[in-house]
């Protein structure tokens, strides 16, 4: 038990910081102005340190915000013989941009349509409406989306339902017998739909020009 032990009931006065200082300040304005000067200077130093630290923190937080092209590169989907002419097949590739903790989530699926001998179409599985995976039905030659019922024709154009446009497509090329696509990020309306003229109801219908 020290002399300052607050448990001593004798020290009855509850510490009331802040009562005495303004009283002094009221008597001597110069003293207060110096204290306030120090206070404001200390605040300013804090603000300075805060701003200085905020810059690297914000840079760190914004790190993923990059140009689309910086995430993309050419990926091989395998030999073109794996995609018979006239058919549409599901292909799976590893996303070119990965991190060690990705696990199976860096798998990406896409549909490869072998139109003619050296003509391909590669579609993202993501519905252009809200990104759900569309399913290919070879019998009716349609892609159907399980979420809100978007339907696309074999060439990826919109057939019906809520999507505003056809399926997203990947750029492709053939390099020494392998089909390569330019991939790397989840296609959405913001990164794959630029400069695409969105028109409704333009399917591969024999009755529409």
């Amino acid at each position, binding site marked *: 038990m020290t002399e300052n032990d607050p*448990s001593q009931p004798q020290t009855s006065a*509850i510490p009331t910081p802040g009562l005495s200082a303004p009283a002094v300040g009221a008597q001597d304005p110069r003293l207060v102005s110096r204290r306030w000067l120090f206070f404001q200077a200390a605040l300013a130093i804090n603000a300075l340190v805060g701003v200085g630290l905020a810059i690297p923190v914000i840079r760190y*937080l*914004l790190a*993923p*915000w990059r140009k*689309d092209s910086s*995430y*993309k590169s050419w990926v091989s989907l395998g030999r073109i013989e794996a995609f018979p002419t006239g058919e549409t097949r*599901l292909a*799976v590739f590893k*996303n070119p*941009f990965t*991190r060690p*903790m*990705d*696990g*199976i*989530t*860096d*798998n*990406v699926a896409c549909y490869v349509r072998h139109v003619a001998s050296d003509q391909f179409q590669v579609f993202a*599985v*993501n519905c252009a*409406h*809200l990104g*759900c*995976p*569309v*399913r290919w*039905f070879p*019998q*009716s*030659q*349609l892609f*159907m*989306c*399980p*979420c*809100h*019922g978007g*339907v696309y*024709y*074999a060439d990826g154009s919109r*057939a*019906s339902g809520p999507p*505003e446009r056809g399926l997203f497509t990947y750029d492709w090329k053939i390099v020494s017998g392998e089909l390569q696509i330019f991939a*790397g*990020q*989840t296609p*959405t*309306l*913001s*990164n794959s739909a630029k400069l695409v003229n969105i028109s*409704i109801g333009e*399917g*591969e*219908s*024999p*009755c529409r020009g």
Partner: protein
Amino acid sequence: MPRIKRTQRIYDWFERRLQLEGPIKDAALHPVPRETASWWYVFGSGAFTLFLFQVVTGILLAILYVPSAGEAWNSLNMLNHQIPLGWYIRALHGWGSNFMVAIVFIHMTQVFLFGAYKYPRELTWIFGVFLLIATLGMAFTGQVLRFDQDAYWGLGIGISMVSRVPLIGGGLVHLLLGGPIMAGATMARFFDLHVFVIPGLLFGFAGLHIWMVLKLGINEWPMPGRIVRRSTYVEEYNRLAHEDGIAFIPGAFWKDLAFSAAMVAAVALCAWLFGPSGPGGPPDPAIIQTNPKPDFPFLWIFSILAYLPPALETPVILVAPVLAILGLLAVPLVAGEGEKSWRRRPVAVLAVAFIAVGWGEFTQLGTTTPWSPHMDAWSSDPIPVRYLRTATPLVREGANVFQEKQCRNCHAIGGLGGQRGPALDDVATRMTRDQLRFKVVTGGGNMPAFGKNLSAPEIQALVAFLSTLHPANERPAYTPSRPYLTNSPPQAPHPSGSGNSF
């Protein structure tokens, strides 16, 4: 009584240092209007109890849960199947979440109908709106942490919505995902949000919310005709609380305590009876045989997105939430005075009823998703035998085409099949053969055109089958002018005319 003296001495030692007795006594014994000791006033404390319950069960889960895209799904399955009662802790957290969302909405409805947001409690309501948003944020991020197929594609829906923001949509998607695709970095930041950021906000806002309830007093029971005016309200309230009031503890608080206990018991029971939710299939983006659906707090959004016309989608997705939140925030600023009683506020009651019915209806639709094709209907739902008993070979072939070309995925027959398009049990009474053929070939409305995907014989068989689909005692549709074009005498088709040409 040396023992009591010693206890008292220990208590004094702590109290001398903590000095909590005064504030706690003030809070516990402050007088509240007599009628507020009501079962209607228990939902706020109930929501807070559930929040604490979620914190505790969340900490318990975090002992074993691995917040990594590669391991989360495995660790959830380990919790479910290998850790004794791991499934139960998961179920407690999941059901606690369901209950918390429900109680927060009930609490909000109650304080809205009781006019509790009016002067001087405007800010209490506004912080309450923040708490609602944070609670929904917890529900959504929690759904992502249950890292299965539904979580994966559900988040995909989320980023598709964000991507519609003009100009910066792409950048926002990158920020949300922590990279170009939904993967390891995505998982980590949703864990961060769910476990640190949003709970921190919840603690902060809930603390201020409760502080204001203590400082401003519990909203008095609204009486028709007792008008809130800024000039007189505080005085009137103090009179109610002090002259006809009771101490908060035990007068009112025992009901809060009892309700909280009952609710935790209900969560425990639901968790025991119904178990944890998921995880469903592994979050492998290469597995596309999936039918993603959000958890119940977001089913209504899922439904609305199915019904919006394409042109309205982006404006509604981006503008409606902002308007809704601004509207909620504006309620106390617009209607800060006046009647509190729901008996004198028909618009408020109507608004609540409208929102409740709309929410219920959209949620119900979200559970049945009549707009989605049934992906397996074409191969799993048979054509009812009665439709084929007297069928010609051509009609049977048409039925084959109907199944094989996935027509069944969108059109039900005999009550089975998709509901995207109309059921076709009596389609022949609505459309003539020519109309059927035209519709099949060109599609239209919500139907794809099948002209390219069906051969001429297939179309002929399909139309032959469809034109038999009418009740036996009802004549199929026909074109009255048709007989004149073919120079034969006018004659309506026979009511049982399956396979007839006309």
